[in-house]
């Protein structure tokens, strides 16, 4: 075991932190996010989640998480999550063709944006999509509707999951958003970037089907789980920032003739915020280090539920301790609060992940052994 970060991991973390911090200081959130995205592209970090053999940097889930946490600390939301962690990752892990390799290379440069359209209704983990794919005359016809696809509103390419009619199994399809029959309905999603629902009645080429059958289901499930971890790391960054902002605020805000930091009830709530941040860090390290193990589903659900509850506590307490100004746009708190509210709602709620955790552990009683030692 090695229980601390390597030098490379620390320098990645510090580098991203500096880059986000610099961007956040000089400009408004939208411009700052754009600047961070451009910096990440320029410095090659868009390859972080992609294996070296596919032209990326070959970073681990932990390293992707460190990047997401640094961005979350400044509530700077870029297409890194939607285009890189989800979209390009699926493209990179599926068997390539010259056409898809070209799209991947452009996604890793930031020249094209990708998004994953897999969710249907409130099912973040659909094993049998209602969207259908039918092969006829050497082309695929995709019909159906996807919900809440982050980044889809501005993406050039979508990765769409569908039930392939001939095999009644999952297939993953690369779909150009300019293709006829791809309609996107854009909405704000509290994250500072838009999401979209996607209506499909589109025909795409034969090689648009990247992978089909159990391998497709496993690939989708793996990348969605990695995406959940990345979002949770971003949430931890936001929690940490809210904790720091609140500590700073209660030291200067005076009521009854003294700083409110001197009141025990305030101190205890802040101590609880600190505990939630440490717990989130712990479960995220654990889940990320085990992201490629058979315990992945269990630990990803553990992380989403644990960080989800922590995010709720930290966000609500931060607003409460800021008092009236906490519920306004006067301070940064509001932006972080919205980001964390979004986090709790998407890619499975706390309750959905509690259920998934129970389903992953109870049949084999895997919870009876040490989660670290196995």
């Amino acid at each position, binding site marked *: 075991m090695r229980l601390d970060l390597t030098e490379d991991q620390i320098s990645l973390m510090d580098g991203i932190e500096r880059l986000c911090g610099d961007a956040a200081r000089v400009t408004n959130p939208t411009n700052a996010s754009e600047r961070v995205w451009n910096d990440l592209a320029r410095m090659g970090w868009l390859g972080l989640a992609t294996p070296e053999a596919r032209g990326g940097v070959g970073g681990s889930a932990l390293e992707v998480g460190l990047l997401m946490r640094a961005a979350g600390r400044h509530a700077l939301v870029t297409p890194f999550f939607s285009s890189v962690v989800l979209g390009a990752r699926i493209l990179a892990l599926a068997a390539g063709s010259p056409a898809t390799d070209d799209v991947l290379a452009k996604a890793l440069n930031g020249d094209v944006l990708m998004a994953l359209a897999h969710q249907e209704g409130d099912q973040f983990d659909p094993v049998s999509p209602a969207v259908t794919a039918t092969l006829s005359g050497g082309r695929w016809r995709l019909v159906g509707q996807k919900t809440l696809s982050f980044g889809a509103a501005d993406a050039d390419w979508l990765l769409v999951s569908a039930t392939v009619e001939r095999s009644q199994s999952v297939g993953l399809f690369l779909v150009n958003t300019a293709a006829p029959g791809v309609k996107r309905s854009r909405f704000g999603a509290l994250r500072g970037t838009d999401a979209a629902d996607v209506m499909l009645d589109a025909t795409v080429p034969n090689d648009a089907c990247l992978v089909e059958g159990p391998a497709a289901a496993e690939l989708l499930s793996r990348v969605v789980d990695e995406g959940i971890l990345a979002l949770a790391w971003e949430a931890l960054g936001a929690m940490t920032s809210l904790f720091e902002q609140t500590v700073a605020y209660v030291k200067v805000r005076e009521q009854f003739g003294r700083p409110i930091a001197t009141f025990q009830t305030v101190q205890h709530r802040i101590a609880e915020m600190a505990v939630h941040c440490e717990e989130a860090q712990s479960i995220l390290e654990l889940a990320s280090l085990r992201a490629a193990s058979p315990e992945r589903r269990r630990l990803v659900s553990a992380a989403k539920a644990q960080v989800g509850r922590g995010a709720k506590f930290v966000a609500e307490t931060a607003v409460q301790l800021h008092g009236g100004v906490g519920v306004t746009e006067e301070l940064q708190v509001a932006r972080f609060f919205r980001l964390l509210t979004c986090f709790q709602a998407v890619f499975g709620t706390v309750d959905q992940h509690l*259920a998934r955790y129970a389903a992953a552990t109870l049949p084999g*009683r895997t919870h009876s052994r040490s*989660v670290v*030692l196995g």
Partner: protein
Amino acid sequence: MDIDLTDDELAFRREVQVFLRENLTESLRMGQRMTTGVYPPPEISRAWQRKLAERGWVAALWPEEYGGTGWTPVQRFIFESECALAGAPLVHPMGVRLIGPVLIRFGSPEQKARYLPRILSGEDYWCQGYSEPNAGSDLTSLRTAAVLDGDDYIVNGSKIWTTHAHHATMMFMLVRTSGEGKPREGISFLLVDMKSPGISIRPIISLSGEHELNQVFFDDVRVPKENLVGEENGGWACAQYLLEFERGAGLFSARLRSSLNRLFSVLDELVDEGFDPLADPLNAARFAEVAIELDTFEMLELRTLGMFRMGDRLGAMSSMLKLRASRMKQAVSQLGVVLLGSYAVRWRSLADTNEPDDADLKATVLPEYLNSRAVTIFGGASEVQLGLIARNIGL
């Protein structure tokens, strides 16, 4: 960062597993399994400690020169996890984990030579004389007095919530030796033979009907001056040092998981009787909530351990671990009574709870819940821990 075991760590783990297979008897395992209070009966913990002592595996927190194991933090984590999950008795921590490190740091050469070997062997069974009827969370207000008379201190007053005082051969205690200055500046740390004339013990029966706690009275008890640890009026430093070990050095996660496993053994028996609370999705979610907190806590504990080196102060991290471990203990035991519903109240009468030969596992669920109410109170109440965490944050 990497949490997979190295070859050496794997080999060590196998060594521990073999040791447990060869030494952890069914009666020792049963003794721990039926324990619903803080500590197993002394005959159980001592019997296990003797086996560990033969192997030199008692004191992972001590330097090797005093008989410590010389383990890395990860080895310690492996050892404690394997022992707890195999159902090994808890080694009575008062000697090995609490007074041992204090003597190593603050004790005289004579004290070390006399007491450390007796702690390792289990010959002395220690209890803790900290709280008093009017000094709980505010420990510095303690009033039990020690006055020097020739070569002895004469101790008068009383200590309360003294777990297993009725089994103990020795007590480490805080006494007031001065009324000058701040309250904490007049406190001294003494070692007292429990057979000393003038000591009397009143049992205090817990919510569960069990006898673990006591009030101990001191009536002109003579304690030799050489039993003072550290300087006179310098006892607070020892007290604080010990509290950090009490709160944060215990490695609780595997013990908590072992409690959850015991609950599952009960649930298995109930399923055989046609009652399966986990089939209800709401209960499955309640289980998941607790198990997830446990997974989280295990990693938190491991990370903290990774930062800790022998001789370090545990500081605020010990408060965080104590806060979480105590709440987890309550969460696990609450899960038991929630899942069992009305079954939880029927197993045996409170008057029978000191009958160790009654091996009905179902009867452990309710007392464990009742006893666990104390864990957020002793060793510094949760409110005290929150205050310490806040102070460390700079508030």
